[in-house]
């Protein structure tokens, strides 16, 4: 009997059409839990570093997590892993919605795709019955539209469908996989899916998931329920509205966007507009949002409501997810929320990443204004008109080109980094907001922040939102407020963290960039990353855990809940060791693919005030704390401690331990 997990993966060879239900090694749960942890292990074992994103050997894995399908609140993420065409590293974008729970109930923990299909297909998983079906009639259809078409054609209203749109079909490097009210966006999973000619994966399941100690499990959930109710009634004081509650920032609920619109940078992540949120804007935005939002909605088994069903003017209904509401609008520098709602729908149908895409479009606009791209690049053909000259029209036009890889869009479709190098003529200077070839959040600030420095530089996600969360983003000016905040903070891994926060000032000696010190920063960042790694193995939404101040899930209740679900006898140290193992395996995987210390840095203009010496020291201190050598490679000693000697041997054999380091 397997508890919490199903114990089976579905292996699909697209070239031969062979489908197998493969029992997994029960030991893997003890060593890597599940979700991201066990997926990383599969990639390490089966995808050598020579394999490129569009090689048939690149595995595309759709994974549920250890706690998916149990009554664990907010366990609903689907984690998709593959070699990214944009970064060449292992990408692991996640989506919420209902897909992974359905997969688990169908009797599988993961679906593993290898090779390429000769024709366009979609996969239909209905419990034990799995079919590869013709999808030629779905080619060119939108990613949202496709989900409905498949449900209708199967006559399965409860099937959950993950689909790509035209962008994925055209192997756009920022193509997403869309599903229900969510999407797996970062790193180009849609492109890899398109390369394998999979239009969609539909799943329906009506089987059982077993809990080892159901009574204990439900007691833990009852405790959590109490805390969720308490937090819903008591938002954190002194924190901006959007971060004061639990759950992913409730972008569809809150209409107050002063913080995002004034703190984040507009255009190609260029300028902050510190006086943007006027009375008129507030009223107009509020009106648009309240009129368009028909209902606040959630993902599977989650009590929060961070999504919204949008019906806006003549735009057909769609489900909006958090920050997409603002990214296109800010990229295009359009002041009307109406534009955000209109372009988001088209972008979701194309199936593109709402973080990267607006930045690519804004980058193209900048190049045009600088004369690097010209009217020739923005010209029409017999298939489409020339690019309009207004801000809205320009963005729609560029989005159309990118999704279809038409004209200049074919170059832009590879993302800012690669496009800048293809365009040349000085375009490289406009690529100022990427890390490891991947577009970042549109934030540009003043003073270097040591915590964020480490998070931007070192995390394998290459996306800050999947890294930060449990530690407040800024010091509290008032000592009394700090004292009040630390008084009730059971989520901390250890009491001594409280002093760091009490002493942390907005200005002066005990402020950024020198405080928290490099040692303290290492501890704080490591803690936040560890929690993200537990979330990603269990597929619990970071919004209720690692990406949330004082969240319902934390290091002290996780071991109890996992133990009750699985029958493992885990304590905090045991759980930390497991995710640390997966995290180091993940790093080794990327190191093997050529990632190095030189890649580990935020964009040069991310902060105005930089401190090169301090930054180098931060990175070295953090590497040391993590048990990595000065090249950022896990040491043999560290790997041995984590039972990963086979990884050390592999890195040694490949000559990756240089200059006498080990």
């Amino acid at each position, binding site marked *: 009997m397997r508890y919490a997990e199903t114990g089976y993966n579905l292996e699909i060879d697209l070239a031969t059409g062979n489908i197998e239900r493969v029992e997994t090694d029960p030991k893997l749960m003890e060593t890597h839990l599940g979700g991201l942890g066990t997926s990383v292990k599969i990639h390490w074992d089966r995808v050598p570093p020579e394999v490129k994103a569009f090689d048939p050997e690149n595995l595309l894995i759709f994974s549920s997590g250890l706690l998916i*399908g*149990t*009554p664990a*609140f907010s366990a609903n993420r689907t984690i998709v892993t593959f070699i990214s065409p944009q970064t060449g590293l292992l990408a692991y974008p996640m989506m919420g919605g*209902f897909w992974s729970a359905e997969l688990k*109930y169908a009797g599988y923990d993961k679906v593993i795709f290898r090779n390429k299909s000769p024709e366009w297909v979609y996969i239909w998983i209905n419990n034990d019955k799995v079919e590869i079906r013709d999808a030629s009639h779905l080619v060119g259809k939108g990613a949202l539209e496709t989900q*409905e078409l498949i449900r209708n054609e199967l006559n399965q*209203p*409860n099937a959950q469908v993950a689909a790509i749109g035209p962008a994925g079909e055209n192997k756009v490097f920022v193509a997403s996989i869309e599903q*229900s*009210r969510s999407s797996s966006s970062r790193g180009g999973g849609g492109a890899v899916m398109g390369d394998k000619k999979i239009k969609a994966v539909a799943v329906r*399941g*009506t*089987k*059982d*998931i*077993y*809990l080892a100690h*159901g*009574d204990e*499990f*439900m007691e833990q959930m009852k405790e959590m*329920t109490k805390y*969720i*109710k308490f937090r*819903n009634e008591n938002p954190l004081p002194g924190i901006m509205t959007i971060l004061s509650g639990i759950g992913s920032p409730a972008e569809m609920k809150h209409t107050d966007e002063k913080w995002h619109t004034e703190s984040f940078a507009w255009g190609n992540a260029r300028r902050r507009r510190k006086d943007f949120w006027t009375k008129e804007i507030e009223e107009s935005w509020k009106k648009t949002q309240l009129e368009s939002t*028909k*209902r*606040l*909605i*959630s*993902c*599977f*088994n*989650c*009590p929060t*409501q961070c999504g919204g*069903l949008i*019906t806006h003017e003549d735009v*057909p*209904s*769609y*489900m909006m997810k958090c920050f997409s509401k603002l990214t296109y609008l800010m990229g295009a520098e359009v002041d009307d929320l109406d534009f955000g709602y209109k372009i988001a729908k088209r972008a979701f149908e194309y199936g593109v990443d709402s973080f990267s895409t607006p930045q690519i479009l804004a980058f193209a606009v900048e190049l045009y204004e600088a004369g690097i791209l010209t009217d020739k690049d923005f010209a029409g053909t017999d298939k489409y008109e020339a690019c309009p000259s207004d801000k809205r029209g320009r963005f729609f036009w560029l989005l159309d080109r990118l999704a279809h890889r038409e004209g200049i869009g074919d170059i832009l479709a590879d993302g800012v980094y690669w496009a800048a190098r293809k365009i040349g003529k000085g375009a490289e200077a406009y690529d100022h907001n990427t890390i490891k070839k991947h577009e970042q959040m549109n934030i540009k600030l003043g003073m270097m922040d040591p915590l964020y420095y480490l998070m931007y530089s070192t995390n394998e996600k290459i996306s800050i939102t999947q890294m930060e969360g449990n530690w407040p983003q800024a010091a509290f000016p008032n000592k009394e407020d700090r004292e009040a905040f630390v008084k009730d903070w059971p989520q901390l891994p250890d009491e001594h963290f409280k002093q760091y926060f009490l002493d942390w000032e907005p200005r002066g000696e005990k402020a950024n960039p020198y405080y928290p010190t490099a040692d303290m920063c290492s501890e704080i960042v490591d803690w936040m990353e560890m929690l993200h790694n537990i979330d990603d193995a269990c597929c619990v939404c970071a919004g209720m855990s690692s990406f949330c101040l004082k969240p319902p899930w934390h290091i002290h209740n996780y071991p109890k809940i996992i133990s009750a679900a699985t029958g493992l006898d885990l304590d905090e140290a045991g759980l930390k060791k497991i995710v640390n193992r997966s995290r180091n395996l993940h790093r080794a995987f990327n190191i093997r693919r050529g990632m190095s210390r030189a890649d580990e840095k935020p964009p040069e203009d991310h902060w105005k005030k930089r401190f090169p010496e301090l930054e180098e020291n931060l990175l070295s201190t953090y590497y040391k704390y993590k048990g990595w050598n000065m090249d950022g490679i896990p040491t043999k000693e560290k790997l041995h401690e984590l039972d990963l000697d086979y990884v050390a041997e592999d890195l040694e054999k490949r000559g990756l331990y240089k200059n006498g380091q080990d």
Partner: protein
Amino acid sequence: MAKIKKKIKTIKVDADKCNGCRTCEVVCSAFHSSPKWSVINPARSRIQIIRHPLKNIWLPVFAGEYAPAECMGRDKYIIDGKEYDECAFCRASCPSRDLFKEPDSGLPLKCDMCEDDPPREKPLCVEWCLNDVLIYEEREEEVEEGVEMEDVEAGLTSMVDKYGLEKVAETITRMSQKE
């Protein structure tokens, strides 16, 4: 006629508040598994959310009586411009659809308001719905004992209206001779 007291248990469903999370389905299946809380499977739940997100339909429906045969016809409601599924509001476990049947055996499921020993304050789905979609209410009603008789009479009256007294009387005679 004698009056008796009857406890009426009601779950009030404020469907406009439902965000479609399906926690109710998860917890219902867990409670009704044996041993309790050991098995999770929303397909075994006695509450089902009928979901058509893009039509703004999230409708929690509870399993009611088992119906051995389906109705002679079906209904389809349009409310506020939203077209609901055929028989969407019906609670029956019925041959016309897959709803409210054990997925493996096909046996009918019926909501028992989470009867338990000792009795629970309210059904589990209500307890676990954190968005206050499901509200539990109990009240006592006085009902007249002879109520069934009146039902029969009302039924017969409608039969007489439709087929005439003679035909109904003939049928009843024939039926009583068969007994």
